[in-house]
């Protein structure tokens, strides 16, 4: 009898300890999920799709995704059921991200955004929707659809129940925003999501100049080539000044490993004018490493 009482006491102690450890962790994640969504909803002229908006880390503005076919000109922001006046908004045509600042202050504890996406296939995400808390799993990067290379890589996420609305932030196990839902995938309960680092990259330019600006090195590549081979180098360009030559094969751009053309296109998306970037490449059988500083692309 004494043994049984001792055993029961030990089991209760264990349950208590697990609860003490797990409760704050779950509480943080759920509090973050509730904090970022679904308080703000956005509707656009020309589209019946209502998207979710998320506050950015500095609390200066909200971000959402422009649905396909919608116009960014007329934006209607709601907090719950209350209409909010929008001070200004800006849409980046490349990423289709819409940044908007309401007239009144956000007054919310803003979540942390992951600055550099981790290459973690199988990572679990949670998000809060009107349907409740949904869970998703990272299925890996999507850099190309059919014969079309994307401007930057998206994440493919599969959900256990429903696909959340466009613009819904996906939180990692520490309650940080890892990605923003872009749109549902073709079939099943899967969707494409914009990685948080792409949102931060565009926000950086939107905040300073009102639009995303591409950093240009002066390298020319051909999408048909399997390997990321430099086809041409523009005379006088940053790449030319640091000595990159045609037929050099890119290995790494700004710490991102490059193995094919879609990898290179994704890595070049994150270049900022005036911010030096480390390049690793193969010339013949020798590996080279140089630092180049991109400039503002001429077409910008």
């Amino acid at each position: 009898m004494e043994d049984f009482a001792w055993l029961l006491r030990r089991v209760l102690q264990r349950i208590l300890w697990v609860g003490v450890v797990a409760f704050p962790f779950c509480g943080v994640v759920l509090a973050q999920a509730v904090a970022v969504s679904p308080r703000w909803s956005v509707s656009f002229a020309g589209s019946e799709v209502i998207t979710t908006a998320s506050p950015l880390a500095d609390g200066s503005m909200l971000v959402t995704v422009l649905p396909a076919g919608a116009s960014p000109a007329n934006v209607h922001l709601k907090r719950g059921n209350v209409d909010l006046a929008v001070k200004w908004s800006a849409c980046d045509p490349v990423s289709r991200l819409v940044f908007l600042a309401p007239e009144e202050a956000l007054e919310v504890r803003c979540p942390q955004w992951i600055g550099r996406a981790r290459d973690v296939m199988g990572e679990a995400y949670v998000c809060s929707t009107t349907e409740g808390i949904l869970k998703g799993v990272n299925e890996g990067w999507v850099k190309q659809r059919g014969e079309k290379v994307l401007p930057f890589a998206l994440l493919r996420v599969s959900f256990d129940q429903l696909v959340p609305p466009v613009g819904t932030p996906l939180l990692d196990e520490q309650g940080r925003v890892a990605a923003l839902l872009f749109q549902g995938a073709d079939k099943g309960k899967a969707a494409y999501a914009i990685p948080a680092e792409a949102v931060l990259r565009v926000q950086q330019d939107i905040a300073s100049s009102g639009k995303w600006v591409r950093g240009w090195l002066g390298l020319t590549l051909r999408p048909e080539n399997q390997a990321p081979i430099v086809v041409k180098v523009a005379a006088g360009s940053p790449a030319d000044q640091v000595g990159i030559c045609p037929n050099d094969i890119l290995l790494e751009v700004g710490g991102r490993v490059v193995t094919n053309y879609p990898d290179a296109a994704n890595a070049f998306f994150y270049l900022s004018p005036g911010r030096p970037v480390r390049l690793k490449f193969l010339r013949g059988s020798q590996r080279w490493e140089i630092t180049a500083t991109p400039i503002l692309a001429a077409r910008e």
Partner: protein
Amino acid sequence: MRPEEGYWQDFLCDFHHRQRQQAVKKSGLVRGLGVFSTWLSDLGPAKWAYTAGLAYASITAAFLLMPKEPQMESLPAAPVRHEVVPAVPAAPVEQLGELDLRPSAQGTLGEQSF
């Protein structure tokens, strides 16, 4: 002047002793060859018959142990039906300028500058 008594006896003993020592120093192969050549010299004319028999046995063994070429069976000639199919050209890869996943989205072909 005559040598002392027993001198020749000692000399002979010493000579045989040295001869035995030298024989021991010779390697086994040399000793074997020596024994064999001595045996062969003692055979007389029969040595030629032995030598010829040994040579014949060696040649026969070499012939039997030589690796044979694999037996190739030639197939009867038959006409081959074939047709030349033109290679399917690789689909051109487009670079999308905007994140538009609709099938109708148009990108740019050819060289891309970064």
